[in-house]
């Protein structure tokens, strides 16, 4: 398998090229794009599984060294691929979930004339994501990082001519927000290179300079890298692009903006874990915790299906960073895995609903769909239970693990972080079942005369069923120690790869008793069940509660704040974008009036000078004689003075 590592990214690349050619060919040939692309990702998945099994069976990592990509002076970046425990696990998710979403997309995009272009992008995405994950250096990670960003941009804007160009705007917003993150990533890499003289993971790990990686340098570099992660993984302060990214086709939201690309930031932090000093990890934890909570509040009252899911994705990604920040990288990656299953499932389910409702995305205009779409309903219910953390589902295990780790890590902020996480869990359970109830329960709030909801074709429901199964059993890989002896394999899986970081401990820290873990699990289970019940109870008949909350004097302001998404977009627009646009106009004026004005003034100055001097040569003999006489007089006078 070691020698075939290159095929994992290259197969989808090849698929993309074929799809591109099919697109150019046009006509009936485009129908082949879906199967071709799916096959390419499927093959990639098989190879990933084989490689993963090799790693499981004892290999530390599979490495394949390619030639030099960049070789300038001391900067060497090779096409080196590494599949170790971390990248192997990520690859399973990327190619596995990617494969199911490809299958689903064949059905979803069946009637779109741009489907060959779509599958070309989708395959290019899988290619870029594989490079991101498998690349053996920060530089290659960055290559994949930019590649997935580009594909995200192109896929969000896939329907570029719809809705008055809104998807294209959303795509641009995503790209630019990510570029802000890239700015940090780049500078972080420069600091790394300046200190270690290499960007290879292995080179950095083995470097003698590791011992002096401390203080402001380490802190600065770690936070700059993390800024990159907040862009890609939609965390505060750069999360604003993700909700808008829902303008893309739903399979894109599932694959890129839920299951894989947005977890790239988490992957990067895990990969770079050994470079993060404890203080930086604490920042990561806080950002993650706060993002989790804030995004959950934003999801509370959204009306559009995909918006709710988008904010919930931001929120769940917050959990992953919370885990990273507490040094629980295994828990973070565990949640990456389970979240990929159930969030992809929810998005695809939402897509199925939207599909069946003739492109309706407003949950207020649905209701009672469980009768019309039994498979979609059942699988969506499974996804919702997982997201809400219903006991014994995969989402329960991974989320509970994170909450437990926030306390177990014993950082100075442990209880504050746990409270944030627990509150988020409650909100999550509530809004998830608000959404579920609005869609599937109660009476039909759509115009039954015009809208005829229907179940989606097999190509779409079978991937849903598979994802639902995975969501249910996905927790098995990380069963907690209170349930089975030693816990699931996931807990110690990453230990050889990620640094065993000791986070900051509060003064007088004492390890929390392991028996307490069970109590924490019971608490999170209870939180989930209560949240679910409240959500169902409040919305099973319809969305009336939202209106009451909005009008009530007590809850009105909070409702406005949450529904208005804390007005972050507006604040950015007002305080960052508008001033920058103004500055740019100011520069344009300054350049024309001042810089160029000066240049033209110099030109005019010479012309003026010429005009004045020209008078001397007026062509009249008399004035020449006068000048001559004057000149002679001056010369004579000078001579006289010299002689005297």
């Amino acid at each position: 398998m070691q020698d075939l590592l290159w095929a994992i990214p290259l197969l989808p690349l090849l698929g993309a090229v074929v799809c591109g050619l099919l697109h150019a060919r046009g006509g009936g040939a485009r129908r082949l794009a879906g199967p071709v692309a799916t096959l390419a990702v499927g093959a990639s998945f098989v190879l990933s599984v084989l490689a993963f099994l090799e790693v499981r069976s004892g290999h530390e990592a599979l490495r394949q060294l390619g030639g030099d990509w960049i070789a300038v002076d001391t900067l060497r970046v090779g096409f080196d691929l590494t599949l170790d425990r971390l990248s192997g696990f990520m690859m399973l998710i990327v190619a596995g979930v990617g494969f199911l979403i490809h299958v689903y997309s064949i059905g979803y995009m069946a009637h779109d004339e741009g489907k060959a272009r779509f599958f070309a992008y989708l395959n290019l995405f899988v290619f870029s994501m594989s490079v991101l994950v498998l690349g053996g250096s920060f530089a290659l990670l960055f290559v994949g990082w930019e590649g997935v960003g580009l594909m995200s941009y192109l896929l969000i804007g896939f329907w570029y001519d719809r809705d008055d160009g809104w998807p294209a705007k959303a795509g641009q917003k995503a790209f630019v927000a990510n570029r802000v993150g890239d700015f940090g990533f780049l500078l972080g890499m420069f600091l790394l290179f300046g200190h270690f003289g290499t960007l290879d993971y292995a080179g950095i790990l083995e470097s003698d300079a590791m011992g002096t990686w401390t203080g402001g340098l380490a802190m600065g570099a770690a936070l700059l890298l993390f800024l990159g992660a907040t862009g890609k993984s939609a965390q505060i302060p750069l999360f604003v692009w993700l909700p808008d990214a829902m303008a893309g086709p739903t399979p894109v939201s599932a694959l890129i903006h839920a299951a894989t690309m947005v977890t790239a930031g988490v992957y990067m932090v895990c990969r770079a874990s050994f470079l993060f000093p404890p203080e930086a990890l604490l920042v990561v934890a806080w950002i993650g915790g706060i993002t989790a909570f804030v995004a959950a509040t934003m999801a509370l009252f959204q009306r559009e299906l995909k918006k709710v899911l988008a904010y919930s994705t931001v929120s769940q990604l917050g959990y992953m960073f919370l885990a990273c920040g507490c040094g629980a990288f295994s828990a973070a990656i565990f949640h990456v895995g389970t979240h990929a299953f159930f969030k992809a499932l929810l998005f695809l389910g939402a897509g199925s609903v939207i599909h069946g409702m003739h492109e309706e995305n407003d949950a207020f205009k649905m209701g009672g769909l469980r009768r019309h779409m039994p498979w979609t309903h059942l699988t969506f219910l499974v996804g919702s239970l997982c997201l809400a953390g219903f006991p014994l589902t995969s989402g329960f295990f991974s989320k509970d693990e994170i909450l437990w780790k926030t306390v177990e890590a014993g950082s100075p902020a442990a209880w504050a972080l746990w409270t944030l996480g627990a509150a988020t869990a409650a909100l999550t359970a509530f809004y998830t079942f608000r959404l579920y109830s609005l869609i599937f329960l109660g009476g039909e709030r759509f115009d039954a005369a015009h809208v005829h909801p229907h179940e989606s074709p097999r190509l779409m429901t079978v991937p849903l069923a598979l994802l639902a199964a995975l969501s249910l059993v996905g927790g098995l890989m990380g069963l907690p120690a209170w349930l089975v002896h030693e816990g699931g394999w996931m807990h110690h899986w990453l230990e050889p790869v990620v640094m065993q970081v000791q986070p900051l401990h509060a003064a007088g820290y004492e390890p929390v008793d392991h028996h307490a873990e069970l109590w924490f699990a019971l608490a999170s289970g209870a939180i989930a069940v209560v949240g679910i019940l409240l959500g169902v109870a409040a919305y099973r008949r319809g969305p009336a509660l939202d209106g009451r909350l909005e009008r009530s004097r007590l809850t009105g302001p909070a409702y406005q704040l949450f529904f208005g998404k804390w007005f972050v977009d507006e604040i950015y627009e007002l305080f960052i974008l508008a001033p920058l646009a103004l500055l740019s106009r100011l520069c344009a004026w300054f350049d024309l009036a001042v810089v160029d004005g000066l240049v033209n003034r110099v030109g005019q100055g010479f012309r003026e000078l010429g005009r004045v001097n020209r008078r001397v040569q007026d062509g009249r003999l008399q004035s020449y004689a006068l000048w001559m006489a004057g000149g002679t007089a001056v010369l004579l006078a000078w001579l006289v003075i010299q002689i005297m």
Partner: protein
Amino acid sequence: MDSPLLPILTFLPLLGAILVLVLPARGEGEAATPLWRLAQGIGLLTFLVSIPVWTGFDPDVAGPQLGFSVPWFHLNYVDVRMSLAVDGLSILLVMLTTLIMAVVFFSARSHVGRRDREFLFWLLLMECGMLGVFLATDFFVFYVFWEVMLIPLYFVIGIWGGARRLYASIKFFLYTMAGSVLMLLAIIWITGMPLAGADGRDVFTSDILAHAAQSNIPPEIQTWLFLAFAVAFLIKVPAFPFHTWLPDAHVEAPTSGSVVLAGVLLKMGTYGLIRFCLPIFPDATRFFAPWLMLIGVIGIVYGAWLAWAQSDMKKLVAYSSISHLGYIVLGTFALNAKGLQGSVIQMVSHGVATPALFLLVGMVYERRHTRAIADYGGVAKVMPRYAFFLVLATLASVGLPGLSGFIGEFTILLGSFMANSWLTAVAALGVVFGAVYMLSMVRRVLFGPIRNEENRGLKDLSARECLVLAPLVILFFWIGVSPTTFTSRTAKTLAQIQARVDASGQR
């Protein structure tokens, strides 16, 4: 002397220019076809002749290669020799020149329309001048070619340009001329400075590389000579605050004028900085380097802001050039191997991406006779091939890894970060702004619904237009995926230049 390859390469376009003048064909309209065939043939042939230069180039040699030298004329103190040679600094730019000119000859006909004979004459003359500038190894030869390439663009803009073509062409000419005069004075001064000969006696020579290898000018004089050269080259780059001629020149120039200007002419400035300023005035270079880095950073950020504010596609691309060339100035004066090599790669990368953008702007201009971004929208729907190329060129321009722009930007920023991290942090903002203005343009031109009915009937790119863009697109990928092909050829020469600068610091 030994190899006749370089003189053939340099003077083939001149021969073509003469042939174009004397060929008995009507110089305009349909009848001008033989003239075009001839020019295209010469352009292609020149490119083909440059291929053995590329393949025959030995990357392991730092000094001049394929040299050619014959006595030319005698000044009272030096023998000026007609000497040409190629080295690691010029090899990429020579290839870029022959490629871009071939592209121009095959793409220009649709927008020239009148006085074709003169147009072709000027362009062929310009190609001779540009190749001469890159290949000259004698100060006076260099200066002659420098002037030879300057005049044709004046006519190209002044005759075939837009509404304000006279203003733009005169501004371009006077601005560049002002710099040239300073440079000429400095050249005369330098050739009057003796170098140490083999037998210990003073030797007077106008050989550039001899001066670059052993000039020993007192630092206080270096300052003035450095400034004279630097100003001439910074005007040409153009760097802030000498940049305002560029948008005027670009906007008024016909497409092919813009393509040559962006593709090759702007690199004369950055080439000159590395060829002359660094090795001949190493002390002054070290002294001024921080300031020039600052000028580079200002160019990057300020140019990007200016580009953002534009409503004319061509003006936007013109300002983006200012931003992208800022990177080159920054990298050059970082005075380390990464910065220098990044700068040269960035020259080539900008030299393929920006001409592609200008060609693309020209292609819709020929269809709709407007360059206002607001007049477009939804073009991707009717011109999918156009959209493909425009997005690709944009991505190459904003530095997406895997395409050409990234390699230059990344190595330059890395190199300059080692020299001055705070300034580089500001420069790296260019990565963000670059995406903002380019993607805004792409979005407003290509995406959204078609608002203007006139755009509904737009014809997609023809096979010829695609073929013209194809070599540039190939280079986007070639440079992006396999930059070592290029950097391996530049490394030795640039290391030698850098060694000169380093040595001055240790004195």
